[in-house]
């Protein structure tokens, strides 16, 4: 029994006619799996490689180049990217990132114990007029403050009484 469902396989195959090579479907396939599983385990890499008629190492090589696809375990239900590049940093983006991580009880790149939230730093999100900003899922959060970032963490994480220990009881 594979990791890829029939639905995922069909979605990947839908991309085949768009490109003259199968290898070009690598990034679309990784996105398809990642959107559904919130990570791309090695088994999925092998199965994608079979579909694309590539060696698993070719898919893994591409995957590992990008920091985007997690492989050890799924990211949280919400993945929040907090910008740390210059326009946001000039308006205290890095402090907001620190504060959010403190409130959630995790470091950048980690997931809360309740699996609700992954916080990561991002390089420029291209929303500098709203600095400091954060992309959480598909939603751009603009002009963040420590307070609005904290409110976001509390809304996102379950059982969070505002004690700065999101789901830390496990």
């Amino acid at each position: 029994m594979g990791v890829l469902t029939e639905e995922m396989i069909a979605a990947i195959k839908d991309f085949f006619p768009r490109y003259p090579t199968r290898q070009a479907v690598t990034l679309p396939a990784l996105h398809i799996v990642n959107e559904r599983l919130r990570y791309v385990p090695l088994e999925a890499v092998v199965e994608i490689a079979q579909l694309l008629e590539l060696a698993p190492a070719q898919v893994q090589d591409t995957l590992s180049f990008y920091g985007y696809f997690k492989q050890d375990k799924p990211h949280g239900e919400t993945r929040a990217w907090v910008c740390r590049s210059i326009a946001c940093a000039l308006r205290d983006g890095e402090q907001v990132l620190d504060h959010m991580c403190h409130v959630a009880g995790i470091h950048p790149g980690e997931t809360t114990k309740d699996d609700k939230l992954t916080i990561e730093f991002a390089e420029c999100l291209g929303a500098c007029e709203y600095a400091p900003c954060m992309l959480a899922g598909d939603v751009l959060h603009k002009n963040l403050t420590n307070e609005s970032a904290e409110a976001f963490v509390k809304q996102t994480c379950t059982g969070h009484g505002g004690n700065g220990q999101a789901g830390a009881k496990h």
Partner: protein
Amino acid sequence: MTTAAKQIMPFEPVLLANIHKPDSHTLRVYEAGGGYQGLRKVLKEKTPTEFIEVVKSSNLRGRGGAGFPTGLKWSFLPKDHPGPVYMCINADESEPGTFNNRILMELDPHQVIEGIILSCYATKAVTAYLYIRVEYPTCYQRLQQAIDECYAANLLGKNIAGSDFSLDIFLHRGAAAYICGEETGLIESLEGKRAWPRIKPPFPAVEGVFRKPTVVNNIETAACVTQIAARGVEWFKSIGVPSDPNNPRDPGSYGPKLYCLSGHVNKPGCYEAPLGITCRQLIDEYGGGIWKGRKAKAAIPGGISMGLFTEAEFDTPLDFAGPGKVGCLGLGTAAVVVLDETVSMVDFLHNSCRFFAHESCGQCTPCREGTHWSLSMLERIKAGKGRLKDLDLLLEIGDTIGIIPGTTICGLSDGAAWPIKNAIRKFRPEFEEYIKRTNPTGYMVTEAVNALPVVALH
């Protein structure tokens, strides 16, 4: 008020003319404003070669950062190639400070798509891949909606608008890597590989994606093509800075430009202005001046790769030739980020070095090692263990990485080098003061010292 300042006043935005309308992203609203008329006219009245000549004679220069003349780029495609020719649209906008393409894709995607169709018609490309960064989910949705609307309205697909020209546009999402904005890095990434830029030649026009002739154009460039088709070359050349009459190879800086303004200003935003307004005009007349009643200290002129203006250099025109005259790399993406008087240049440079160390693709040793060592040194300086000698070491890195010194395949490390060179050469007393103040017993040490462990960062 200077003459240039007076010229701005009557300027009517064109690229951003639609964005404030309700449902500006829909085909209905775009067509109600005259959208796709330029395309229909070109399809009826001009051959592809004639349209290339139109764009060539407009002197339109690519808006992605390098400023290469668009029509000339198109004309490098081999004649009578059996094809297919591919169009790649670069929407991997990731240069810190830059968001003009996001505005266009989110709020006026049809203006972009019309330009892509026109560009493909000119270059005889029958497939266009729009490579969009994954951090732009709203753009992705809006563009897909717009593309679907175009297929339904016979503006994409077979025999567009009754002509014998056919085209497919496919969106292709990246995965959060700055290097995919380099055109050959983009091509490699599109092919499903790591985004390692290619050695040129062969240039993409000869051998690009899938080993076929390829043009890579920016989103704002496509929007300019739309406007040139609709309004004509005369209109385009009535805006901006003319070519230098003493330099027959200077294509000038014509047309409207989207300037991004962020950092310590009262009104950050994306503003359309004629090419050639000064940094000070942008900050004062569009951005409402420096925030909190403070003074400016410096500004990034066109994305962080371009280096730094000092406050005294703010009267430099933001055209393709301007920033280079005060030691910056160029106009870049025309994204201005303003630093007020409270900003530490050590912090600025640390932020810049951290960005490039994170985004170096690792293919060329001078870039991979240079960006990382410069970050290590900045971390040490920031933590109070800096030495005056480090400034010379940083400059040595800055002067030796990149295409310009000839040590790397792509320009990422030129972009990494410029902030180092400009910050230290233009603000050296501040760096020296910081180092002496924070490391009073060690700032004169010259023998090798260890990098700090990463933990000192946090």
